[in-house]
């Protein structure tokens, strides 16, 4: 291609913390083509945290409704203790006991955070021991209390862990209202113990509060390890409220922005315009980790040979209180029109992979919903499609879970038969994990920008 300004498709900016953006795409569009797809990989490498160098606050919410009585509550208490023990010195924390109302279990009866040290930790462990099971399940009120607590803190990582075993008893309206109130205020990871809770409800919370995907704990005995891991992961987060800023050209439309790894999450309608021609998509807090996003932009068509920046993706730390935004990394999603059909129709492997994974998640959820509704035909078709997609995209864990729900006759064509009796745990595990994707690595070596041009 012509000599000139070469604008790399991958950019490294070193800052603290370190973020990096890689873009995988086929930038070539057919003449008249408008839809640009790209997988944007965001990698963060947080600086090693020492002591209280990062301000963090943690709320542990334990369902203490009547149904938790007995072994489940005992395990939940053990799990909450494990989480408290995993907290770093100096972290602000609180324990909420969730029933028909939300109560402060620690600091007991006071709506405030305690700062973690040996004394408060010991006191918290004791307070957890005193929690009792009674009342209903009103998750909205629990989250609102957490929101109130986090509102007392200016900055830093704000993370909650929510454990439940049952269905929410709130009116949908109240629940949604509460969710709207707390959206963007903190990040929440949800866990369901047993099989009496609803996957959809936890998925809803997870999606609003940017958790790492809801989890099912079939055996209460596994709670301790899981809670410890969540608390540790939270302590590993170094940056909060990171946004993905997507600039797009005039007269273009963002079709969607989806997180596709580690879990599927549609962020399309979560954007806020804080810079001209750009939408800020919330991503929550980051530790040392990697997330992939599938971005689709519809652009005005251009002449053959023209190169367009169809999207300019930046990892931004919005400046609070009038401070300047901090751009941590950036990358370009490009478009170039060509008459070369072969080139224009090639699909980037990572784009194809995640398109398949997103469809897989949807097929599972549709299939299971149809199955619950007694629509055997749809359930068979959709779960069959899921089997084929899992096979195709090499998602072995999902393929394994699917085999507990359907008998697979031919995995390639997705020919399946619904099993007559399915363990509830297996169905819920499949449902819960449906949004977990298998990651593909960004293409190494020459970037997508280096493809030789005509002439």
């Amino acid at each position, binding site marked *: 291609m012509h000599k000139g*300004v070469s604008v790399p498709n991958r950019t490294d900016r070193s800052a603290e913390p370190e973020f990096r953006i890689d873009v995988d795409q086929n930038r070539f569009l057919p003449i008249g083509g408008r839809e640009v797809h790209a997988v944007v990989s965001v990698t963060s490498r947080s600086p090693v945290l020492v002591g209280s160098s990062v301000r963090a606050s943690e709320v542990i919410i334990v369902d203490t409704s009547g149904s938790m009585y007995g072994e489940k509550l005992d395990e939940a208490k053990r799990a909450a203790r494990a989480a408290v023990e995993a907290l770093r010195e100096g972290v602000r924390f609180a324990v909420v006991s969730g029933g028909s109302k939300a109560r402060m279990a620690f600091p007991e009866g006071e709506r405030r955070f305690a700062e973690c040290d040996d004394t408060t930790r010991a006191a918290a462990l004791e307070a957890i021991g005193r929690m009792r099971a009674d009342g209903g399940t009103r998750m909205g009120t629990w989250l609102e209390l957490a929101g109130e607590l986090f509102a007392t803190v200016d900055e830093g990582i704000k993370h909650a862990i929510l454990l439940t075993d049952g269905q929410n008893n709130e009116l949908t309206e109240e629940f949604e209202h509460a969710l709207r109130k707390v959206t963007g205020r903190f990040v929440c990871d949800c866990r369901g113990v047993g099989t009496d809770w609803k996957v959809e409800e936890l998925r809803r919370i997870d999606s609003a509060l940017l958790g790492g995907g809801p989890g099912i704990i079939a055996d209460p005995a596994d709670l301790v390890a899981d809670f410890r891991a969540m608390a540790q992961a939270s302590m590993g987060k170094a940056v909060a409220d990171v946004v993905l800023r997507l600039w797009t050209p005039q007269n273009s439309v963002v079709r969607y922005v989806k997180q596709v790894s580690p879990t599927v999450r549609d962020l399309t309608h979560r954007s806020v315009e804080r810079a001209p021609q750009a939408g800020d998509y919330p991503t929550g807090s980051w530790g040392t980790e990697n997330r992939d996003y599938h971005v689709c932009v519809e652009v005005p068509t251009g002449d053959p040979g023209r190169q367009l920046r169809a999207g300019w993706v930046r990892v931004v730390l919005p400046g609070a209180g009038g401070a300047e935004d901090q751009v941590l990394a950036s990358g370009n999603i490009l478009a170039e029109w060509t008459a070369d059909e072969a080139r224009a129709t090639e699909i980037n492997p990572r784009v194809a992979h995640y398109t398949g994974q997103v469809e897989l998640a949807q097929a599972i959820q549709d299939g299971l919903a149809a199955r619950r509704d007694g629509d055997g035909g749809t359930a068979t078709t959709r779960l069959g499609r899921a089997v084929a997609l899992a096979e195709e995209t090499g998602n072995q864990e999902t393929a394994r879970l699917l085999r507990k729900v359907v008998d697979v006759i031919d995995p390639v064509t997705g020919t399946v038969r619904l099993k007559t009796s399915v363990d509830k745990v297996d169905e819920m595990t499949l449902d819960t994990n449906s949004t977990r994707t298998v990651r593909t690595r960004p293409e190494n070596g020459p970037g997508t920008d280096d493809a030789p041009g005509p002439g």
Partner: protein
Amino acid sequence: MEHTDNVRTAPQQSMSGATRGGSGTSGGNGGTGGRTGDGSRPGLVPSDGGPTAPQVSLNGATAGPAAGAGGGRSDSFTTQSMRRDSVTPRPAAAPPGTAPDWPPPSVGSSPVQPTNPDMCVWCPGRVSDGYCEKCGFLQPTGRDHVEVRTRAAVGVSDRGLRHRRNEDAMAIRVIAADDARAPGTVCAVVCDGVSSSPRSDEASRVTAETGATVLAEQIRRGADPREATGVAMTRAAEAVAGIAESLDSAPACTFVSAVVDPAAGTVTVGWVGDSRAYWLSGGPESSASTLLTRDDSWSEAMVQMGALSRDEAMRSANAHALIAWMGADSGEIDAHISTVTPTGPGTVLLCSDGLWNYYPEAESLTDAVPGAGTRPHEAARTYVSLALRAGGKDNITAVLIPVPGAQGGLRAEQD
């Protein structure tokens, strides 16, 4: 692409000096050539009746068309020169190495200014990182895509899709509206570097700039457009000859110019080579669309001689071989000059073969971009865009000069 033989009012000049100054096919000529049935529609004819006087014979020697040498490169869209073995070319007046001596244009003519690098070429956006902050397009570098916008004329030049660089050049000068002698007269030049010659990008730039500057200078001094065109072509040819290191290494290019005088309603074109000028009709009351030039190409010569049909000629490997160009090795050049007085509104289009290869007919060019004269900038871009979409095999340049035609009820002068 079909190329029916309809060079309707081509201002008839022979390729060689043979018919120079001759055959005054006047009035009647305008009616020939199968103009679409409307008898009431005025034709477009050279205003002075005489075909292309004055001839500018730069070297005095006469060269016949096409001594068959040189020839067929596989890319039939590449402009190439045919060297004339029979004629020993001599450098033109300016000795090699002498820089062309043209003063910067004074007040009243707006020189070609590449667009501000901080601003987008395509839209009013600012540029950062090489991309426009508004429309997102990667900004072209150097001459890859150049746009010249003045109130009275617009030019767009593009590298196309197959060539490494843009060897086309264009230059536009507009005489000030309050100029005493030639208010609002537009002078424009398009040159296409001969790709088989060295530094043809430089050749086209020097030639176009010199041509347009001298044109404007002459016009402001009160010269007649035909006289000005003759002087400008001579000076342009000298300038490009001047950058040659030797006759074996002589940069070369084509030349086409237009002087549009709004007061007189005349359009004067001058050319050497196969870059073209068209009249694009602005409506049913205006003079019909027509090609104003006749290529100095092997194929055109074959057609004129009756040796080949136009289709046969265009299929030949030599179709685009030039038989005349500007450069130190060009030998004698016949500078063709023609003046027409169109009736009604329309647009004068100067273009390189990167455009007309895809739209050889004046009618098809006119139909391709309706209302070109009312939105010339958009139209010039559209022409370039159409050529790109058709394959963009060559550099593409289109300069558009709208002719309002309302003033003084312009008409074709029939005698």
